[in-house]
């Protein structure tokens, strides 16, 4: 029997592929359908818009994926993003000559500090991620309010070079897209081809095993939240530059969109599982839903329900596929 079912389970590697293919298939069908309804959908201009608008989400999703792989979750990223965006743009409004790259760097640094505090709470003091990030979400958001004194930083207070971070383009491709592609390449390499990257999976797959085999679980966990924070910080700068406005309630609730994109992308909340390629298709589907629904005149009031239904269907279908392909559905827990 063990032999039999393990043959069945041999194809477990393929499940992930089946999942990704069915997701890509769904994306294609959806695109064709939308294109049918609005011929402007599959134009270069719109695709550029679509990707530009999805870029920030996709960057955050990379960080969230790593957090989720280690069995964690980060609810604070919207607040971190706002904090970094606010601080950076306030800085820019005082020193308009600040080089855009410096602004990006400062934003990332602010995010890193925020993330590493959370990392410390989770990794060192064993506070559950959902609690630690929920608490720090409040704290970061409050600090943003306090520092800004409730004021906005508006377009005219930002230098052109700062605003050009997200409006400029390289080789005709919007900077945001370029940055997110760059980040995907870096993290694809990091996750798949470096020892530290693999340790993230090890910690998520079995924290106990990781511990006895000498992996510094504390350090890896801390690292993951710090990376998440840094990416949120970077996204803060991009966000503020894109919308040319920094508010203290920027991106409030955005973390749920990011988590939803990860879930559609097949990142398992139970940890240890998830691929960059899967994530990419999840992010893409999410971006298309956001972009296409207004284009085919779906009432804005339907959009929430449609998104919720799609996420629910995505997770249920992937669970069903997993069952069909014979993975054991015994109630025993792994680990």
């Amino acid at each position, binding site marked *: 029997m063990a032999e039999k079912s393990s043959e069945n389970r041999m194809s477990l590697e393929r499940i992930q592929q089946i999942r990704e293919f069915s997701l890509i298939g769904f994306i294609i069908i959806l695109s064709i359908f939308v294109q049918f309804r609005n011929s402007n959908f599959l134009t270069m201009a719109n695709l550029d*818009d679509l990707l530009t608008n999805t870029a920030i989400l996709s960057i955050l999703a990379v960080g969230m994926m790593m957090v989720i792989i280690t069995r964690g979750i980060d609810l604070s990223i919207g607040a971190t993003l706002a904090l970094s965006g606010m601080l950076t743009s306030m800085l820019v409004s005082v020193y308009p000559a600040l080089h855009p790259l410096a602004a990006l760097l400062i934003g990332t640094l602010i995010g890193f500090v925020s993330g590493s505090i959370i990392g410390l709470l989770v990794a060192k003091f064993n506070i559950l991620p959902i609690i630690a990030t929920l608490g720090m979400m409040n704290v970061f958001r409050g600090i943003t309010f306090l520092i800004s004194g*409730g004021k906005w930083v*508006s377009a005219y207070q930002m230098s052109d070079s700062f605003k050009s971070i997200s409006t400029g383009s390289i080789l005709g491709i919007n900077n945001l897209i370029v940055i997110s592609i760059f980040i995907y390449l870096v993290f694809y390499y990091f996750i798949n081809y470096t020892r530290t990257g693999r340790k993230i999976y090890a910690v998520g797959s079995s924290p106990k095993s990781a511990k006895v085999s000498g992996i510094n679980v504390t350090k890896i966990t801390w690292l993951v939240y710090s990376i998440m924070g840094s990416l949120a910080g970077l996204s803060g700068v991009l966000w503020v530059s894109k919308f040319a406005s920094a508010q203290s309630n920027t991106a409030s609730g955005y973390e749920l969109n990011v988590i939803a994109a990860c879930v559609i992308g097949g990142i398992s909340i139970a940890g240890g599982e998830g691929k960059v390629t899967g994530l990419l298709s999840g992010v893409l589907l999410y971006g298309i839903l956001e*972009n296409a629904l207004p284009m085919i005149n779906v009432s804005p009031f339907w959009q929430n329900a449609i998104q919720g239904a799609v996420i629910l269907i995505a997770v249920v279908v992937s669970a069903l596929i997993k069952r069909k392909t014979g993975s054991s559905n015994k109630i025993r827990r792994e680990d």
Partner: protein
Amino acid sequence: MKKIIIGMLVLLMLFTVVGAAAAQSGKYALVVKSAGNPFMEKVREGFENAISEVGGEAIYKAPAEPTVEAQIIMIEQLITQRVDAIAISANDPEALRPALQKAMSRGIKVLSLDSSVNPNSRMVHVNQADPEQIGRVQIQGIAEMIGGEGQIAVLSATSQATNQNLWIDWMKKELEKPEYDNIELVKVAYGDDLRDKSVSETEALLKSYPDLKGIIAPTTVGIAAAGKVLTDRDLVGEVYLTGLGLPSEMAEYIKNGVSPWMYLWNPIDLGYLAGYAAEGLVAEEITGEAGESFTAGDLGEKEVIKAGEGTEIMLGAPFRFDADNIDQWKEVY
């Protein structure tokens, strides 16, 4: 354990049920929609100016999120503090009724400003501008910009606050005039007063209606987002933008020609007027009946007029911001 707690509670209560009820006079509260809204910060400034002129204490309350629930709690806290007047910019016209009625029943004067509450839950409303005027003037503006013909669209907020829907209704009435026969209102889009949503809604408008000539955005978030999109796509002179915006946010787009001009009232004056109206109510100079009048500091004599089933005090016509005056205003608000 339970007994202990109950015991403690009772003890605490007995301890100071005699608690002092030191009555102070002249506490005026301003409750706004949410924290972090620069328009409201300016309203606050005006309100505080007025209150300090009349020698009272101003209390400012801004919920972290723009929800009615939070405003209700704040009203209850203000009732407990025994303030003399509450001026509120409501997140919902109806849902605050029970809370505000409770306040009024405890002798607190209630008025709304900016975004009104229903007449039965206030004594008077301080209106920044006549909705009819606001609606009509925006159509007149966009018609002038696009030369009297072409497609236009409206980018609104969530339209949950009564304002936008009312203005849009007046816009539609204005459009019925024969001189606008060549102008077609193709869509009312909702950006939910969110930056990202407003941007993607603007983009969707541009894509869905390639011949679009003008956008009216009667909301500060929407107009700034639309200005940004039109600037980024370099559509100066092709798609015109007007509406209601903050000078500081719109300065750039007014100067680059995306939005040759736009409108807004002066939030500082609005707050100032609300402050004096509150004082008038507390001093029982007015009661909120139509026909009464009072002196609102520097703004001079103001009259309470009938509006629908309730009454209101009008600030004045919307102010037009264009390339000539924007520089002096962008630093103000």
